[in-house]
């Protein structure tokens, strides 16, 4: 019974979670990203400008990952960074092994932003994706 209620609530919320862009495209304000075998299962995601977007991040690997989203300058800093754990910024999410987290971001500028896991070797292994913000 509880599962049915959850599913109904989720479906209702999901149905109400889309947003229409200026050109009429329907873009979701809730995005699910799964990490499996050290890869993001989505590498190109389109979201609408100026509204809160909730990302649900599931790491089903037995190793730690992170989900950091920003521009090139942001990633250049993190490639050389020494911050072991992220937690208090919505665009920097640390994901312990076998864990799930959600974060909500509002994008104020159209264009692409990259999300990357900056643990050693993970970016080179392919843990890179793009969020394209549509107006």
């Amino acid at each position: 019974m509880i599962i049915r209620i959850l599913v109904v609530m989720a479906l209702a919320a999901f149905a109400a979670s889309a947003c229409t862009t200026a050109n009429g495209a329907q873009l979701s304000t809730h995005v699910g990203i799964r990490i499996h075998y050290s890869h993001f299962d989505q590498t190109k995601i389109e979201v609408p400008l100026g509204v809160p977007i909730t990302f649900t991040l599931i790491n089903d690997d037995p190793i730690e990952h992170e989900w950091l989203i920003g521009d090139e300058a942001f990633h250049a800093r993190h490639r050389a960074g020494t911050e072991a754990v992220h937690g208090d910024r919505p665009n920097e999410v640390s994901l312990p092994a076998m864990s799930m987290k959600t974060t909500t971001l509002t994008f104020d500028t159209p264009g692409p932003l990259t999300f990357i896991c900056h643990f050693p070797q993970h970016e080179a292994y392919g843990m890179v994706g793009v969020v394209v913000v549509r107006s």
Partner: protein
Amino acid sequence: MRRFLAGFAAVAAALIATTQPAAACAGLIGPNGAVNLLRTTTFAGYHNGVEHYVTSFQFAGGSGQFGSLIPLPGIPDKVEKGGAWTLQRLIRETTPVRRDIALLSANAAGSADKAIVLLEVRIDALDITVLQGGGAQVGQWATDHGFRLPPAAPEVLDFYANRSPIFLAAVFDADAAKARGQQIGDGTPVHVTIPTANPWVPLRILGLGKSADDRIDADVYLLTDSRPALLPYPFANGMRLDHSAVATTSLLDDLRSDKGMEWVPQSGWLSKIAIDASASQLTYDLAVDAKGTSPSRVAAGLQAPANVTGSSGQPTSDQIALIGLALAAFGAIFLLRKSQPVIG
């Protein structure tokens, strides 16, 4: 019954460390992700349905701890300190020497959701744990115990766990090694005894943590009762069959005289497989049929085991979004209920 046997390779993973002990057939991954692979040597002897695997962990200086995670083909009966000269004697047996040098030498010398710990043993400065579990469980255990696994580890651990859910984790304590008086370059031989139906030597794992173009050098010695059949055949795939011949009596006598090597038979066949490959080439393992007939394609990693269902049971992105939304909605309800004013 699993058709795998020993020989193994190592998924190496850094703990905290600056040390770089070398396990035979091990890729070593430093704490900064840098890879330092030494040419390594392993010995897999098979007789009377039992695999005897001998490898060595080499002290390369530094301090702290360093670990290796090694897939095994079965549950070992014993893990003990290996003999003193087995690996060195095998190298001498198969290393080509010039005739003049040979003559000089002759003249001179004449669970459920967690990995299950099956076995724990301390050998010199090595803490060894034998684990049973799926790739995720063993990976979680390793993460919980400070291993920093490379990004390919989840897939590679599953690849091996689907064939045999047994792993050996070795943690090398460099401080203890120094306290014991071990010098840089000193090796700690480890002898693992594993009952199993046929030999199996994981090779793909040697590429773990490497870039596609990184070179992998390793030597695998096989001692079987008769000439074995190998799959893939060591030819033009990053493998070479450097030696394949009846084992000499002097070799067998020498091996038998080493500690823990009484099992060595009176006759046998010695094979030496050299790995000289790029990491991207090593997509296979070495399957061995000790009777010389039909090595397993599954054991060679060329075919998935029949019971593997892949990752289709995992949620899709849409399902994840739904789960997240449902949890968020549930949380919101919880918060709303907590904030309801009490009407009395």
